């Protein structure tokens, strides 16, 4: 799905960041923040679920960040960012009123509308819930168009879980199951890998579309578990990450075999991706 980018306007090129103001900054976990960014001129871009922005912390650097806010309508850009390096740390420290540069949106989208009429399973690991939140928001906003809907979410510890304040609202109409890798006795929930949640998830494999995002090895295990349940490989969608620099398919840094993830991805059917993941040198 092609969308107009904020840098398509006259005087801009796709490589020139547009200034955005930090309107809100909310802490999700010890190292993860959700920023709401408003354009200085106009309502902001329309972003499809799964697309990413190139986010520039002036004087520090630029990184690709998946959009975690509501999809499909022009408005503020919502980004959930984990501080894992100098650039993401600078972005996370941006207080309301600060200015960040944005390019995009880039990449293709989760085909969530096409999943309508069937069941939906969202499998997320760690920060991978951020790019999937637009999928969840779409399903919540069009609940009558889908069959069963499940979010299966795994994180390292209970302290690393994102969006926990939203789960009660989500659970009114969809199933949300959470597990962590390790926990103390105060944690009343499940401990174990996220794929352990799959056997209890209620969905009909033949009519299910699965959306998977997280560390690559987690996605491989999740995809295998989904295949074992009978979900068709072309209906298992995964979001890939590689080192994306230009965002527009020019620099080649995000090449994975015959595909450029920034241009052709980041969302791929597992049927397309599985042969590439088996090549260890890629």
């Amino acid at each position, binding site marked *: 799905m092609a969308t107009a980018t904020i840098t398509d306007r006259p005087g801009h090129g796709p490589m020139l960041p547009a200034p955005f103001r930090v309107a809100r900054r909310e802490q999700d976990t010890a190292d993860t923040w959700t920023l709401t960014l408003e354009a200085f001129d106009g309502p902001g871009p329309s972003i499809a679920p799964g697309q990413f922005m190139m986010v520039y912390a002036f004087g520090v650097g630029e990184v690709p960040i998946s959009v975690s806010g509501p999809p499909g309508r022009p408005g503020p850009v919502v980004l959930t960012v984990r501080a894992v390096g100098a650039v993401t740390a600078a972005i996370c420290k941006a207080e309301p009123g600060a200015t960040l540069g944005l390019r995009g949106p880039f990449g293709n989208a989760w085909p969530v509308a096409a999943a309508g009429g069937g069941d939906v399973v969202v499998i997320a690991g*760690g920060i991978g819930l951020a790019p999937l939140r637009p999928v969840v928001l779409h399903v919540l906003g069009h609940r009558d168009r889908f069959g069963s809907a499940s979010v299966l979410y795994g994180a390292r510890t209970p302290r690393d879980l994102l969006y926990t304040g939203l789960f009660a609202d989500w659970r009114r109409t969809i199933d949300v199951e959470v597990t962590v890798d390790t926990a103390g006795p105060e944690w009343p929930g499940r401990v174990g890998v996220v794929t352990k949640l799959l056997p209890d998830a209620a969905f009909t494999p033949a009519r299910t579309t699965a959306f998977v995002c997280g560390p690559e090895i987690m996605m491989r295990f999740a995809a295998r578990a989904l295949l074992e349940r009978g979900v068709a490989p072309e209906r298992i969608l995964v979001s890939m*990450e590689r080192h994306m620099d230009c965002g527009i398919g020019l620099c080649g840094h995000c090449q994975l075999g015959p595909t450029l993830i920034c241009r052709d991805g980041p969302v791929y059917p597992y049927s397309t991706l599985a042969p590439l993941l088996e090549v260890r040198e890629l």
Partner: protein
Amino acid sequence: MPLFEGLGDEARVLIAGCGRNVHFAAGDRVFREGGEADVFYVVRHGSVAIEAFLPARGPVTIETIEAGDVVGWSWLFPPYRWHFDARALSAVRATVFDAVCLREKCDGDPALGYALMGRFAQVLIDRLQWTRLRLLDVYGNGDHH
């Protein structure tokens, strides 16, 4: 119970003869590290935490076991001692199986023993694979987001 799916009626009757239903309230200890492992449990309802007690940290939950799954395999091999603690996270209904009774029946009926060991091997392999995945600490680092 998924553990016993595919077994013949005769085998099921033999196994059932070693089992009885039990209940645990939330927070109840199911077993304690070092204790005699003379039983195993199949959870029918609720959730059980497998825990290790770490000095200066207290109890840490290693894994949770849900309805349909097995708690306990230390009954399989000497010295028949629990390696971890187990605690009911919620009200739990389970079937507890007398390990001595079952081992005797397996010794006397190698076909039953083979079938049962195959099922427990699958449980062990699943838990091992999950543990290996968690050892990688995949959520710890490396995301660009």
